[in-house]
């Protein structure tokens, strides 16, 4: 009956909020696309049906008592209050059921823990609030940020199909290969989850956790961070694209070439305008989550940059805090996260945006020298 009520509610809700018409009424876990996720799904369904069976028996007897043994129907209470045989039976039978359940669960668990003989290793690092993917055999890596525009989040724009589940740079993996994930975090604990793979593992600062998957079906798979990691915990999705092996190899070569191009950017001569243009974009990706797009921050955890002592003061101190972070606060060391061009662009942008009219600039080359001098 409750289900009908919910369906009626759904119908009503669906009609009155056309924007939500893409929503669905999925009530169960999906089996996913990997061996592990299918094993988990089978375990899930087995234990579910065991629970249903126990529920039917227990609630059945209870409802029978409620209907048949009512005082208003003239029921007289029986006098029994113990029965050793029955009590031993209903201790032992559940025990046997649990042992039966534990056997396949143990097998699946041991298989999930077998991270040996992987074809590709990807290091996954959680940051507040983005993921970094490093392809350690190929020597390149990049950050994966939420791509949903903030106007959609604040309801100024219609929400897209993959609202909150879309990123700028998804992880790319080839199908049919055993991928090993090495998970860690830079600041607080995060958790990397792709439901379709049956992979969820915490990314913990100071630790490296392992997990693995083998995806056979090409496609785009979406998940989210599942460990509360601060303000934007709900805004750091995981997107993985599984592609054919040729496509994967092409993509890897592109990435290597792009990494080389990024390095060349450092040597280029930059004008103030170029830096400001690049800085505005890079700031939106790397800084705006805390310091806000208009530089107003969220004090006291995330100070304002508009008119701040750092952004309008000595440029060396400004470079230091952006490159090295501020220990004991949420301000991360961005020196290892961003390339020199982005660092220079962001610092220059912060010093000249929102009425911070300092007028000076720093070039990627200077940042490069600064980092090397440390």
């Amino acid at each position: 009956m409750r289900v009908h009520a919910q369906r009626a509610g759904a119908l009503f809700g669906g009609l009155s909020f056309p924007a939500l018409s893409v929503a669905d009424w999925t009530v169960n876990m999906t089996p996913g696309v990997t061996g592990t996720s299918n094993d988990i799904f089978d375990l899930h369904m087995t234990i579910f049906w065991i629970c249903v069976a126990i529920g039917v028996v227990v609630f059945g007897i209870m409802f029978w008592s409620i209907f048949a043994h009512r005082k208003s129907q003239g029921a007289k209470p029986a006098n029994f209050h113990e029965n050793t045989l029955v009590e031993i039976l209903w201790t032992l039978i559940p025990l046997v059921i649990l042992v039966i359940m534990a056997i396949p669960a143990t097998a699946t668990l041991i298989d999930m823990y077998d991270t040996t003989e992987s074809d590709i290793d990807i290091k996954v690092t959680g940051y507040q609030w983005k993921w970094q993917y490093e392809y350690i055999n190929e020597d390149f890596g990049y950050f994966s940020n939420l791509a949903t525009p903030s106007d959609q989040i604040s309801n100024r724009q219609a929400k897209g199909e993959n609202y909150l589940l879309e990123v700028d740079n998804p992880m790319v993996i080839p199908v049919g290969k055993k991928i090993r994930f090495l998970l860690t975090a830079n600041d607080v604990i995060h958790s990397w989850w792709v439901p379709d793979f049956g992979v969820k593992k915490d990314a913990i600062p100071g630790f490296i956790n392992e997990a693995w998957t083998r995806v056979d079906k090409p496609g785009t798979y979406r998940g989210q961070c599942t460990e509360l990691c601060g303000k934007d915990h709900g805004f750091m999705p995981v997107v993985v694209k599984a592609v054919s092996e040729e496509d994967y190899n092409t993509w890897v070569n592109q990435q290597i070439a792009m990494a080389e191009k990024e390095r060349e950017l450092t040597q280029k001569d930059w004008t103030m305008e170029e830096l400001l243009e690049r800085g505005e974009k890079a700031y939106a990706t790397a800084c705006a989550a805390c310091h806000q797009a208009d530089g107003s921050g969220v004090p006291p955890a995330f100070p304002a940059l508009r008119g701040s002592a750092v952004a309008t003061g000595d440029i060396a101190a400004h470079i230091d805090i952006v490159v090295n972070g501020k220990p004991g606060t949420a301000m991360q060391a961005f020196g290892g996260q961003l390339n020199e061009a982005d660092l220079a662009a962001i610092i220059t942008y912060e010093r000249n945006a929102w009425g911070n009219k300092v007028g000076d600039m720093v070039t990627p080359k200077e940042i490069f020298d600064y980092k090397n001098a440390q």
Partner: protein
Amino acid sequence: MSAVADTHAQEHHHGPASGISRWLLTTNHKDIGTMYLIFSFTMFLLGGTMAMVIRAELFQPGLQIVQPEFFNQMTTMHGLIMVFGAVMPAFVGLANWMVPLMIGAPDMALPRMNNWSFWLLPCAFLILVSTLFMEGGAPNFGWTFYAPLSTTYGPPSTTFFIFAIHIMGVSSIMGAINVIATILNMRAPGMTMMKMPMFVWTWLITAFLLIAVMPVLAGVVTMMLMDINFGTSFFNAAGGGDPVLFQHVFWFFGHPEVYIMILPAFGAISHIIPAFSRKKLFGYASMVYAVGAIALLSFLVWAHHMFTVGVPVAGQLFFMYATLLIAVPTGVKVFNWVATMFRGSLSFETPMLFAIAFVILFTIGGFSGLMLAIAPADFQYHDTYFVVAHFHYVLVPGAIFGIFASAYFWLPKWTGHMYDETLAKTHFWLSFIGMNLAFFPMHFLGLAGMPRRIPDYALQFADFNMVSSVGAFMFGSTQLLFLLIVVKCVRGGEKAPAKPWEGAEGLEWTVPSPAPYHTFSTPPVVK
């Protein structure tokens, strides 16, 4: 006080002192019990209001009402207030009122400490709630306050939060000592351990759990305090510490804590079901052993909250097996309640309605707990709304319905009046429907992949979230009705006889209703 003065005081039993000093200085277990219950209900409404803010924000996708920073403060404070402010004090209040009446004692064993352990609580919660108004806001790291989010990255108010937790811990430990001292020393002649009422048994075991784990909680928050203010690195990997250590210590407290919040309800339900089935509790001895087994096992399962942190596979298997094992004694309890109802002579007054709902819905929460215990499957459930559904199914119809059932069961004894049965049944049915509407869809949301503790969500989760919010508003507003019913019952109503329930048994029903200010000055004899 000299022995002579003591005797003098015994001979001249007066009623309560007048004015505010009655409440500030009282050492009477009934007054203190009442204060605990009022405090608990106040906190229940406050924590509930925060839940309403959460559900209002989650009514639709997108950010409408609050910002993520404040949303996180709401989830954190909702959890802390409900666990430490609503559920635990309610059970201490029930223990204060009922344990002396049930064992035939004149008062608690340590009445002055009793007063102190109550009055510490408002102080602790004043500090905790005041953090909402501090610069940087209230704690925003979840009620589980995992390091390093709560240490290196916590708001400045974290130190106040730690201080509040310390005070609550002191209060709980003193309350537990008092319960143990009372039960072990002050039982009426003839009441052997195996003749004690179930509520007394469950509270005795709960009190030992409290004494065992509250110091562990105090330890973990003290380590946080040191990390935050004195430069240690217990939980800071950069300083050689271990963020996972925090979780081990926290859950060593946290898992017994969930039984602290449910065992007294088990006890109360074990009185209510026999009373309205007009039949003795089935399997008293196995009920006692089951509670003992649950309490012991609760110390061996903490890492099932941490299946995704990277516990080695052998540890993972140990904690999975130990957790599955808890289902056995818990099952015994449920089977015993059903067997008590079987071939009884049932009537369905409000306490019984809440008790039956307790058994059914708590069992559903137990089933989802069984599913969560399967470690490989937990990788999919962990930190999703499935977990939120699970623990709300054990805590709302478990702990909270257990408290409501107890309140309706004993209100006539406390006030001397019968409550309004029609209003009370309305309270039950609205709570029952609202609660299921709020929490059942959360199972679906979790299985579909919605993580917990997020202020905004993907579009496929929209419909069930809306249903859930409607249910939550319904459940929340219904609780004001309970306030009305209790106020009405205190102020008047049909006079309650000493034993208002035909099938009820126990010493508490041998004293008049309302229970006189002093009871059992001469101990009764139990045969």
